[in-house]
């Protein structure tokens, strides 16, 4: 295929603005997928993606389109994750394209993610092509949406296609505009081979399959590839392009094309997203710009609810990490919870998704400890250490100063909620930067916030204070000095390491207070009174008491019916199995979960 007739583009949108639905319509219209194979929202093929309406993994598909001008085109549609946790993946997907369709909901207008992703696209020199979706809704106001796009993003939008992906209105116009608006790729087919990895996954028969955008040169089966960041080399066994339902092998991939390479690669760690692929036969000198190794931002301990399932949990994590190079895990031991894993995630959503997949796809019952960010601790000895587990927080006497990661956040919301949002950001130790009116009644609030304040439940709290109207996005900004303390929880006088966390000194009291209240609610009455205490360095700052229960007896013995009593006891015993024995206290799984959602 002549590069002139190739278009590589992605779709960017805020969650629920119709990105995946539009992708489906495009697939349908280009007859890439037979109708009978259409499952709603084809590109999001994990259950969780469909349920949550989000895209977790990037995906790509090649489409054939015959334009109104009679020419045949090849479209490579690259679906990108829409969430800030996966910002780096998004940026690599964008780097594989020349253009981006920006989908804006005609009734909602611009949202925080729209902005973040659009800026990212512009940064990568992509041609941004706005489309106004959901014009079938009674509340649709396409005019307003176009105005917002022009005013806020500053790109012309008055002639943007006005579509309804749901009912299929004006989809063809979008495809025609892709041809006219998105530039064709321009790579030298005869230059040394140079391709960008924008995704990869593990196939149990073929090994790791890498998705690439060929920037220059060409590759054939049998060529030996070299991954420039990891320096790993492999012989290519199969190359091809991504059909809508399966991979389609071809003999050669050339500059401008999007496709896959299989080379019997065993470890996904060898194939970093963002890395450059070249060939030994015709190597390029320089890798493509923009590669970086993604590091986890949030850590938490994951433990099997039933200690005997440790090995199962390990197997499951290993399998998940085959397909998710950004998931890190290593064994850790908690006095309270026994054997488990310290897992690192790109962000909260990533964490939730991994937990959910472990529970759902691997049928595991988990106990998760409070997520922690990575703190930087400057010791009096002059050494600097990084702490991702509150348990390891050093003795305050040895700490010269401590720093915590900060983010730069944008919150977009109707102006009615400004007060509520500011109050929340204030509580979460935010620094107000500025506030812009996007429109007469919508604002963009700009804050610097400590990451540790948003990893718990910030988004939930934001939604509940704005009736769900606020959108939120952030990016990491670096470290800032902070007054941090380690808060410990004691049950019946014994410290529970799995419940310790690091908090700003000013918030320690209220956080401790809420923790003990939540725990009191979630720990059932037991044989003894259980003091639930929060402490900083041995000093108790909050206390609640779970009263001892008084009566737990089956007094009557049913005329010699011993078996019946035994059955009732057995039932009670089953219930106990779902509890964790911490010292002398039995703690249900929900208690661990409850302290993660303190705002409720």
């Amino acid at each position, binding site marked *: 295929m002549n590069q002139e007739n190739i278009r590589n583009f992605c779709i960017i949108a805020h969650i629920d603005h119709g990105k995946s639905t539009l992708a489906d319509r495009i697939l349908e219209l280009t007859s890439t997928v037979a109708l009978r194979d259409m499952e709603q929202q084809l590109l999001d093929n994990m259950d969780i993606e469909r349920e949550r309406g989000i895209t977790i993994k990037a995906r790509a598909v090649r489409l054939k389109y015959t334009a109104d001008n009679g020419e045949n085109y090849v479209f490579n549609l690259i679906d990108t994750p829409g969430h800030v946790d996966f910002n780096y993946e998004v940026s690599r997907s964008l780097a594989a394209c020349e253009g981006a369709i920006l989908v804006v909901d005609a009734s909602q207008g611009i949202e925080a993610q729209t902005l973040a992703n659009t800026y990212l696209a512009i940064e990568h020199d992509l041609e941004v092509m706005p489309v106004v979706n959901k014009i079938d809704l009674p509340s649709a106001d396409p005019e307003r949406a176009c105005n917002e796009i022009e005013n806020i993003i500053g790109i012309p939008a008055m002639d943007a296609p006005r579509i309804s992906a749901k009912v299929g209105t004006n989809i063809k116009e979008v495809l025609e505009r892709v041809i006219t608006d998105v530039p064709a790729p321009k790579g030298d087919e005869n230059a040394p081979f140079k391709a960008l990895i924008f995704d990869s996954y593990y196939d149990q028969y073929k090994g790791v399959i890498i998705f690439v955008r060929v920037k220059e040169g060409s590759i054939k089966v049998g060529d030996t590839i070299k991954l420039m960041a990891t320096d790993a080399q492999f012989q290519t066994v199969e190359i091809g392009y991504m059909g809508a339902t399966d991979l389609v092998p071809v003999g050669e991939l050339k500059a401008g094309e999007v496709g896959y390479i299989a080379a019997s690669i065993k470890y996904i760690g060898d194939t970093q997203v963002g890395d450059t692929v070249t060939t030994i036969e015709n190597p390029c000198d320089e890798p493509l710009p923009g590669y970086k190794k993604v590091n986890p931002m949030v850590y938490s301990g994951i433990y099997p609810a039933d200690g005997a399932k440790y090995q199962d949990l390990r197997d499951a994590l290993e399998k998940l990490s085959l397909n998710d190079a950004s998931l890190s895990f290593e064994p850790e031991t908690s006095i309270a919870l026994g054997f488990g894993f310290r897992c690192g995630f790109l962000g909260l959503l990533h964490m939730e998704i991994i937990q959910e997949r472990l529970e759902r796809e691997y049928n595991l019952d988990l106990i998760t400890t409070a997520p922690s960010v990575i703190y930087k601790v400057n010791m009096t000895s002059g050494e600097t250490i990084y702490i991702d587990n509150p348990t390891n927080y050093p003795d305050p006497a040895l700490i010269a100063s401590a720093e915590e990661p900060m983010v730069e956040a944008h919150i977009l919301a109707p102006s009615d909620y400004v007060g509520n949002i500011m109050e929340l950001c204030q509580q979460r130790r935010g620094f107000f930067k500025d506030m812009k009116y996007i429109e007469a009644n919508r604002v963009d609030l700009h804050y610097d916030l400590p990451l540790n304040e948003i990893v718990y439940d910030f988004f939930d709290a934001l939604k509940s204070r704005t009736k769900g109207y606020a959108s939120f996005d952030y990016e990491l900004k670096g470290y800032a000095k902070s007054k941090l303390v380690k808060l410990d929880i004691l049950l019946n006088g014994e410290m529970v390491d799995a419940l310790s966390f690091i908090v700003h000194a000013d918030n320690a009291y209220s956080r401790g207070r809420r923790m003990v209240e939540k725990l009191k609610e979630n720990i059932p009455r037991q044989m003894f009174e259980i003091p639930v205490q929060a402490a900083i360095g041995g000093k108790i700052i909050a206390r609640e008491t779970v009263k001892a229960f*008084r009566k*737990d007896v089956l*007094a009557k*013995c049913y005329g*010699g019916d011993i078996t019946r009593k035994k059955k009732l006891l057995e039932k009670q015993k089953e219930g106990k199995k779902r509890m964790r024995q911490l010292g002398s206290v039995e703690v249900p799984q929900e208690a661990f979960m409850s302290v993660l959602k303190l705002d409720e």
Partner: protein
Amino acid sequence: MMNKKAGIYIHIPFCKRKCPYCDFYSVAGCDIQKTDYVNALISHIKSYMDKYISADTVYFGGGTPTALSANQLCEILNAVREGFSLTEDCEITTEANPCTVDYDYLKTLRENGFNRISFGVQSAQDSELQLLGRLHSFDTACKAVHDAVKAGFDNISCDLMIGIPGQTVDSLCDSVDKLSQLGVSHISAYMLKIEEGTAFDCDSIRSSVADEDLSADMYLAAVDRLSKHGFEQYEISNFCKDDKRSRHNMKYWNLDDYIGFGPCAHSYFEGKRFYYDRSLEQYVSNQYSSQLVEDNSPDKLYEYVMLSLRLSDGISKETYISLGGNEKQFDKNANMLVKASLAEFTDIGIALTPRGFLLSNSIILKFLE
């Protein structure tokens, strides 16, 4: 601990009227049904004749045993004497509903060998009795007890219910006072438990019964009051004077053999637990052939822990260990419970205190972990 002699339980599944809280098996029953049933029981009981089993307790329970005539009960008892070799000092008990007996009835029982009677009094407050759907007033109960004394019974027990909707600590203590004034030697004080499928299993009753704290308070108050009147607690729910324990019930708790007759009667005999189906018709038509085995080889440790902890004699460390229990676990639990005043050390191990009895389910499970 094992008593070689068995206990005999006879279930009489008839009641004039079903009490709304009760889920024991019983039917109203007409005369023909009763006759058929008595005959079926008698032949079933006699079938044990060639096993030469010696028994030292007989217990008629229900339902309402006194829904049968005194003669019918005596007829059944005679069959027991034929089927089993009863010891001289055999304890022979029948449960009785106060309003189904009079002096003559009781006299007949006594003359034919019954020597213990257990009245379902439940409360000394008529309003509470009405709520429980009982057919008797407290006066009727008093009269029945007096008649029993007159008829020659010197081992009389009364049931007392704790946790009746609307009951207070005061009304309960008043009931204890009044029962002890009747001169009975044994009181069983049961906490009302709402059983699934009974008339009490409804929102209005569930919402009006005592909550956890109140029922615990009432139980402790009753134990205390009973002890003031000279009743010694020997089991979670049972109290007696002059060591007049229910020897039959003790068999359940001591893991001794007992053989039950009648639908829904349970047995522990020859190492297995079995019972008969909850159907009068079936029992009458095919009798003991329909024995249902629940447990062929009951877990001795489990049952020992579960049952011994019901008794004020308590659990023996030696027996616990001999049945496979872990010594360290025993000591750990024992120390923890004693420290919390939920148990006291005894010569052989520990025994629960009244507060401990209230938590016995959790405590039992601790010893079985």
